[in-house]
């Protein structure tokens, strides 16, 4: 298994140092010992072998075209990501939170959903949103918070909403989307609609109230939910092994009577296979699965964060050598499915497309002053009508051209 995770590495060390429990007649083993859990696949699924062959047990049997298309999504996501960081550094956008290093986890899982399935995002999943069909321009408008931004410039960059693409709404408070996604899928189940909900969150979010609530309701009501835990090693500066005493995050499935599975989150096909199995199981009415995708956040937490303050370059470098995009490209190369020329074309096209979008976004007007008061309620109550009138009649803030 090449895709070991910093959490797990630390844990094995812990396990060695833990004292023996008093064993007077009970059948317990150490909580820190590795053991098979009911419903949990412990050994991370990996599909692409070093020699380029696929583990037949888990091979999702994608066509060459599908694999190439997915690879191109990964590359495209990466390029947009890097370019947005640059724009932030230039002061042209205020913030970006990206998915560098987590492309396989995000795109592999999103691709494993069926068209009718809904995706409930955390905040690193713009790649999935674009793959689902949101025009790049709309996403870039969101990054600029201009008048064309689908959320009308009301939220920070990367807090998009994608209902037309069967894609939820990003909010900052950690974990809240988990319970909502469970309710969403539960409603579909009540309506007997064939629909699964995939919800994303980081391993840090497993500590939130709402992970507990969402997973517990999912277990009791057997909702068609796939909990996609991106274990990227860090919650800002807190390492995964300080987030929970459990051996793995997938283990937490046991507490709720749902299925758990771990996969190599930097192996696109492994993520696809693990998620696909979970989607199919949910669609068959067999309930929810907690997928722990073992990956790594290669960038800072966001553009506001400097990861050098809390983690070693050696750790980052080790993970860079497992770069999911590089790994998948190598796999495609072995099969003769891709080449540098195609990649260069894709990169250039994406960069050009993005540059156009940025240009348009920068040229677009700011949201109107009036728009600040819309959508608080379906209709403006008297107090908001008054406040709107006050704002419109009053002087403008500096730098606002309205």
């Amino acid at each position, binding site marked *: 298994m090449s895709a070991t995770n910093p959490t797990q590495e630390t844990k094995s060390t812990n396990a060695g140092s833990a004292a023996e429990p008093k064993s007077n007649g009970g059948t317990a083993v150490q909580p820190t010992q590795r053991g098979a859990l009911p419903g949990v696949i412990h050994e991370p699924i990996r599909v692409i072998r070093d020699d380029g062959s696929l583990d037949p047990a888990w091979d999702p049997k994608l066509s060459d075209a599908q694999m190439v298309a997915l690879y191109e999504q990964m590359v495209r996501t990466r390029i947009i990501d890097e370019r947005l960081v640059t724009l932030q550094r230039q002061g042209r956008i205020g913030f970006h939170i990206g998915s560098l290093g987590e492309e396989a986890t995000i795109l592999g899982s999103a691709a494993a959903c069926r068209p009718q399935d809904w995706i409930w995002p955390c905040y690193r999943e713009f790649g999935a949103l674009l793959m689902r069909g949101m025009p790049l321009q709309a996403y870039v408008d969101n990054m600029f918070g201009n008048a064309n*931004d*689908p*959320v*009308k410039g*009301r*939220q920070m960059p990367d*807090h998009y*909403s*994608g*209902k037309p693409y069967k894609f*939820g*709404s990003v*909010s900052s*408070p950690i974990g*809240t989307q*988990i*319970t*909502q*996604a*469970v*309710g*969403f*899928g*539960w*409603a*579909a189940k*009540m*309506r007997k609609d064939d629909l699964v909900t995939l919800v994303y969150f980081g391993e840090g979010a497993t500590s939130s*109230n*709402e992970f*507990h*609530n*969402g997973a*517990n*309701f999912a277990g*009791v009501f057997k909702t068609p939910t796939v909990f996609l835990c991106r274990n990227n090693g860090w919650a800002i500066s807190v390492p995964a092994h300080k987030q929970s005493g459990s051996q793995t995050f997938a283990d937490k499935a046991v507490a709720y009577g749902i299925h758990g599975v771990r996969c190599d989150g930097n192996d696109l096909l492994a993520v696809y296979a693990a998620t696909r199995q979970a989607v199919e199981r949910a669609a068959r009415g067999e309930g929810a699965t907690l997928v722990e995708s073992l990956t790594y956040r290669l960038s800072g937490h966001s553009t506001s964060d400097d990861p050098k303050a809390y983690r070693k370059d050696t750790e980052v470098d080790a993970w860079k050598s497992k770069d999911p995009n590089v790994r998948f490209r190598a796999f495609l190369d072995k099969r003769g499915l891709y080449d540098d020329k195609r990649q260069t074309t894709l990169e250039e096209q994406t960069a050009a497309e993005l540059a156009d979008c940025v240009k348009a976004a920068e040229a677009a007007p700011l949201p109107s002053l009036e728009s600040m008061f*819309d*959508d*608080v*309620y*379906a*209709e403006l*109550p*008297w*107090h908001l009508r008054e406040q709107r009138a006050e704002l419109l009649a009053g002087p403008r803030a500096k730098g606002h051209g309205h």
Partner: protein
Amino acid sequence: MPQMNMVQAINDALRLEMKRDDRVVVLGEDVGKVGGVFRVTAGLYDEFGEDRVIDTPLSEGGIIGTAIGMALYGLLPIPEIQFGDFIFPAYDQIVSELAKFRYRSGGEYPSKLVIRTPVGGGIRGGHYHSQSPESQFIHVAGLKVVCPTNPYDAKGLLLASIRDPDPVLFFEPKRIYRAAKGEVPEGDYTVPLSKAAVVRPGKHLTVVTWGAMLYEALDAANQAAQKGIEAEVIDLRTLWPLDIDTIVESVKKTGRVVVVHEAPKTCGLGSEVVALINEKCFLHLEAPPARVCGFDTPFPYTLEMEYLPLAHRILPQLVTTAQF
């Protein structure tokens, strides 16, 4: 017209709407088989089945969080929180999510549900079965808050709340769940949101109140009338957005106002009512707007009748304000 108490009227509204609109689902702790600890959902489980009347695990965050998700899917959930005091584990889902969903998604995701919960004191419930948390929600943009005082309004306001496009917190004053009785039409009708009721006309001063304290205010007003003071008593019914016109019209007439509420005084809705009156009709004021409220302590058990702003505490303020 049948006589009903508040519990029956709310139950009637729920049943009616569940029949009419198959998107409506009820969920919460003990709402199913046993029909809620106050029996407000009695009989619904038998009539509509466990898919529409759902006993949940003991988690308010889970109840509201999943209800939001259901609403986003297109259902119309009516979660019950067993006591208003237990709404706080769900506070994050309500104030960070439910209240902001339509706005933050640029209008893509209206998230419509009605949260029902019993509030208020007077049933010997102590700290945790007596509170009136309205102002903690009214401060948060995006929520509507309703609080009926009689069975007719309870049914009509609940039906209006369910059909309103925005999320509504429906606070049921538990002290008068069974005590408040009256005629309630069979079948469909609504009482519009954001319209107050002038329950007692008067010319000397205005009393703004809601919930169980309405009856205390009326009691005090009747006693004041014996001293020649005629108080106009306004039942807000919808606490937010409140009916500013009715308040202002009355205060312009009387020039004097007393706000009465159970919740602690400080930063209660009463302070907002006073501040609004200052903004809207300051020059009509002939006496300082006053508040008679719960004290700024946790809700006590033994002394609850001393804590609550009952008639005996309201009356002196009516006299003081009228004679100012």
